[in-house]
């Protein structure tokens, strides 16, 4: 089936990207590879996922995968939003300090010529 080739190629590409520029295997890389192999397994033997799904009380393996993805996406979204807000706060602090510092420097040593035009 074409879909299997596409999915396996995609998983292999992710694996290649993750491994690129790394010569050691940190813990989270190991986890990424474990997930990639699990994905490849599910692509090659889709009916096997039904067994796992049935075990946790879900009818089809596809449904189980959908649920797991939904929760994962939400987690990642919130995680990065929190990071984003924190980064924004740090950027504000840095910009503020820079503005005050520049004003203090100019007060002690005024610029010789006014060529520092705003961009």
């Amino acid at each position: 089936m074409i879909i299997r080739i596409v999915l396996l190629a995609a998983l292999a590409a992710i694996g290649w990207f993750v491994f690129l520029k790394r010569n050691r295997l940190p813990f989270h890389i190991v986890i990424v590879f474990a997930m990639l192999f699990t994905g490849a397994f599910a692509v090659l033997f889709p009916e096997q996922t039904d067994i796992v799904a049935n075990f946790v009380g879900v009818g089809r393996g596809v449904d189980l995968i959908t649920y797991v993805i939904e929760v994962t996406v939400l987690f990642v979204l919130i995680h990065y939003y929190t990071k984003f807000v924190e980064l924004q706060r740090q950027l504000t602090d840095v910009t503020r300090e820079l503005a005050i510092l520049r004003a203090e420097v100019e007060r002690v040593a005024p610029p010789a010529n006014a060529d520092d035009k705003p961009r």
Partner: protein
Amino acid sequence: MDRHGTWVVIAAYNEAAVIEQVVASVVQAGWHVVVVDDGSGDTTRDRARAGGATVLRHSINLGQGAALQTGVDYAIRRGARAIVTFDADGQHVPEDIPTIVDALADHDIALGSRFLGTVEGATQRRMVLLRAAVMMSNRLAGLKLTDAHCGMRGFRATAAPRLRITQDRMAHASELLKKVQSSGLTYTEVPITVRYTEHSKRKGQTGFQAIRILFDYFFRAS
């Protein structure tokens, strides 16, 4: 509170058209003025300097809340004992600054109120919108004020650490009132004049932007 110990803080973003005139009117009245140019793309910085202000510049545009806080930090660094915030678009008049400063003799915070004072040039629609904003902000902050989100207010330097703005954009006004309510600082409202000009109306907030402000207020609290 004397004039010497008071710093007027103005946050400006792309206000080159009016900032020089606004700054000059405050400087000529004898006040220290610090303008925070919030990453403007025009000549706001040069115009503000020409008006006689100390000018700070944010390298990037962060928002009005961030700019005001930068100005407050700088003023306190320079030894300010009282801070008065003033809008860059020319809607406030320098004659109201002494009223705010006088009120700081008895209170930690003095909030300007256009509804206790006078409003010039506002349309009926804007007045309705403003009244709604007052109700909304009183609900949010748990205060009973006659005006909300008036850009003209003053506070003592000793109150500044408890009034730190963390909302970079427009939600800082609601944030400040919330802090006024929870800090236990004493506050009062003073009548001021607000003059809406064609320029200030163009730069002002629209009803739709209120949604963004509410989002920031509820989901960006850090």
